[in-house]
């Protein structure tokens, strides 16, 4: 028995050329070139990100199943990845995601205040979406920006050293 067993590949009975859109397929194919043969499943993470972005910020079961077909992997292996990482959402999200880091450094530097503030001002608690659908507040694990804690990830942009007022400004600036 070895540590490195090649991942189980599954040949699904579906036509890959009907999945997603042509642009998405091209983008995923470009990802596939980064990995060795037989290890195309490694592309599952960036591919999920592509699909999520194209689907308004969240993943459906059907999308995950399609990706399993596209990458010749068991469906449950895609579910495992999508449920493990905080950046994949399996429920409908607001137009923007405001992700407040709540790991040690940020917590010591006031991230809980930020969360509380958003709750009071917008009535949105972690995991919830504002009534106007503008943003979803997420409490996430370490963003790797401890030096300038507290850090908040708005969509794909890092914002550091935030005070409640600075966060307000950010949120108000969202479309």
């Amino acid at each position, binding site marked *: 028995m070895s540590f490195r067993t090649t991942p*189980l590949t599954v040949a699904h009975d579906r036509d890959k050329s009907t999945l997603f859109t042509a642009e998405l397929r091209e983008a995923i194919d470009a990802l596939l070139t980064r990995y060795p043969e037989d290890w195309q499943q490694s592309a599952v993470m960036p591919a999920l990100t592509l699909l999520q972005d194209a689907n308004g910020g969240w993943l459906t079961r059907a999308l995950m199943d399609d990706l399993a077909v596209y990458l010749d992997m068991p469906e449950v292996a895609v579910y495992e990845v999508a449920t493990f990482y905080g950046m994949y959402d399996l429920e409908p999200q607001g137009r923007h995601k405001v992700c407040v880091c709540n790991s040690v450094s940020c917590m010591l530097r006031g991230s809980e205040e930020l969360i509380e503030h958003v709750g009071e001002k917008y009535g949105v608690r972690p995991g919830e979406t504002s009534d106007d659908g503008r943003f979803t507040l997420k409490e996430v694990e370490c963003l790797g920006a401890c030096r300038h804690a507290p850090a908040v990830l708005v969509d794909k942009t890092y914002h550091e050293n935030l005070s409640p007022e600075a966060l307000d400004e950010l949120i108000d600036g969202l479309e």
Partner: protein
Amino acid sequence: MTDKITIEIDGRACEAAPGEMIIAVADREGITIPRFCYHKKLSIAANCRMCLVEAEAGGRPFPKPVPACATPVSDGMKVQTRSPKAIDAQEGTMEFLLINHPLDCPICDQGGECELQDVAMGYGGDVSRYSERKRVVEDEDLGPLIATEMTRCIHCTRCVRFGAEIAGVRELGATGRGEAMRIGTFAAAAVGHELSGNVIDLCPVGALTSKPYRFQARAWELTGRDSISPHDGVGANLRLHVRRNQVLRVHPNDNEAVNETWLADRDRFSYEGLHAADRLTQPMIKRNGAWQAVAWGEAMTLVAERLKTTEAATCGWWLAPNATLEELYLAQRVARGLGCRDIDSRLRQQDFRDDTAAPLRPWLGCTIAELETRRAILVVGSDLRQEQPLLAHRIRKAALAGAGVGCVNPLELELHHGATQLVVDPAALPAALAAIAKALDCAPEGAGAALIAAAEPDDRHRALAELLRAGEAEQGGLVALGALAVAHPDYALIRALAETIATASGCALGWLPPAANSVGAYLAGALPQVGAGGVALEQPGRALDAMLAEAPRTLVLWGVEPERDLIDPTRAMAVCEQAEFVVACSAFRSPALETVADVLLPIGAFAETAGTFVNASGTWQSFQGAVAPPGEARPGWKVLRVLGNLLDQRGFDYTSAAEVRTELAEQCGEITHDNAARAALEALEPRLAEGGLVRVGGVPIYALDALVRRAPALQRTTMPRATLALYLHPQQAEVLGLEEGAEATLTQGGQTLTGEVRLDARLALGCAWVPAAVAGSERLGAQIGPIEIAGGGLQ
């Protein structure tokens, strides 16, 4: 890297192979290291951390305790499994594992045989320091075989790895993270693999347990008895767990040469059939159309009298191929002692044209363990996973090790490994083999000469020929004939062509014995042309086809349900009804048997009799009875002993099944199994004409024999093509003007039947798949044969 190195575990010098893990060496030496996630047949996960040990290599200690399951040995390594540091690490891990594990062993089904409980006894603290809330996980319904209590799961992932590595299909996964991590299907689907029950053994805690056995007994109430599985040709080694004369569950016994450490669900859950409501518990005689329970003496006297007075040439014996070797041997002794030669146990075969040339001691063609080292395997006419779940696993291992696997079938198999599948019209099966033979440059000779001469191989045939040739280069290919090939109207032709292919490609010819004692039946002489010891008889009797064509006046049925177990149930029932006197020796009573039989003799089923099965490798595996047969039922060999004595035959004074076996073993002498034809065959004409629709009646995995058909949990599973319906390729259905769910009238064997149409793109064109051996199929004819289909149901 075959050199041995020496390491030291707990001060003891141990020999090890470089690259081996510490835990494997310790296991071999009998040194206990606690573990949960490690399993010798699965990949290494090293995620439970229970096997932490202290080690030093090259004189330098590792800075931290290392997991014994994931640390390769090196020369001169010193390992301490019981040092204070190791124990401390193990106890720490144990405490963490118990944080989220319920401490309610008394209400857990695994209590008393739980690895976590056992290890906690040794390494756990007396009092928990954890006072916070424990996590609770919702249970999932994994189907009728596996019960779940996921709160108890410790995330060892053995079940997940089993799916990926052994079953070949990832049904279970670990979704979520940290405390939210859970094992399940996520999609809330039942697991459907035919080996899935093994996760019950693998699960070290009470998270995955047996549903039929749930809350039936405690481990310490059970007595273990060794036995052999009575289903497929593997003869899986079983451990029956018995309480108060009842088999309550079945576990595997490890045997690398047979079942490794696995069991198919059929072997594991079929015991439930022993508790069926329709067990035959008393000898019965039909008088004036009514059944009367009688004493053994009365029934046996009547049977002996009728057998004695009947003309030997008009007496037929149908013996089940899953009867024990002793029963088959004694039955043919009694029959031949009476001068009766019409004995057959090939109940699912219809082409006997090559009986004069067919092998006398056939077998798998290699041993079961060798199957996984074959370099090329061509499976001909077999719904492999349904027929032979454990052989299919060996073939999968061969495929993963790089062997080429090819199939020639009337359907595309759902295999979890690479395979070159040639899907052919069932009538064209011989022609497809002939094309492969031609691609191998075979001269048009033998039984299939005309077909080979006419064959026009295309790329698909050449690909399979190449695959077999590649196997020859490395000395080890196999062309294996499955149950669908055996049931084919042109089996003689298929066998001859398969042999031609095997010879031309340097491969061995193989056969996948469908029943527990299919190989043994030849040795016992339970065939019209084969005598005890597997020798050719000068005066062969009539084979099954002749007995079905012209009904014997007296019939003896041994463990046979004529409406389910025969190739042509309509014909079989008609023959039984025409017979003047029918004796049915059976463990079960069924309405069909009660209709056609005149005497019912209750014999012990699996686990209730001592006996021997000869498996596909030709290994004789003997077992003792584990429980007493119910009521007045008696082990079959004893019934036959009494019958022999009542018929005044000599030498029926056996005192044990072992004596019978020894006598037969002497007659067999040094057994060499061989699948090669004994004589050259003349050219044979195909019987099945191409162009028409052909019914193919595969036997679903849980309909194989009387016992498994009565196992309720297995019957509740959903397996492909398991219920009576007309399965058609979508294009075939379109040609016939039928849609999914429509009703169609099937006409075969002079009978008609209404069946629902189900579309299945895996089937070949020209194939109308209607399963055999299931309820309703008794109203159809031959398992494989022409069928007529019309739209609309019967009016």
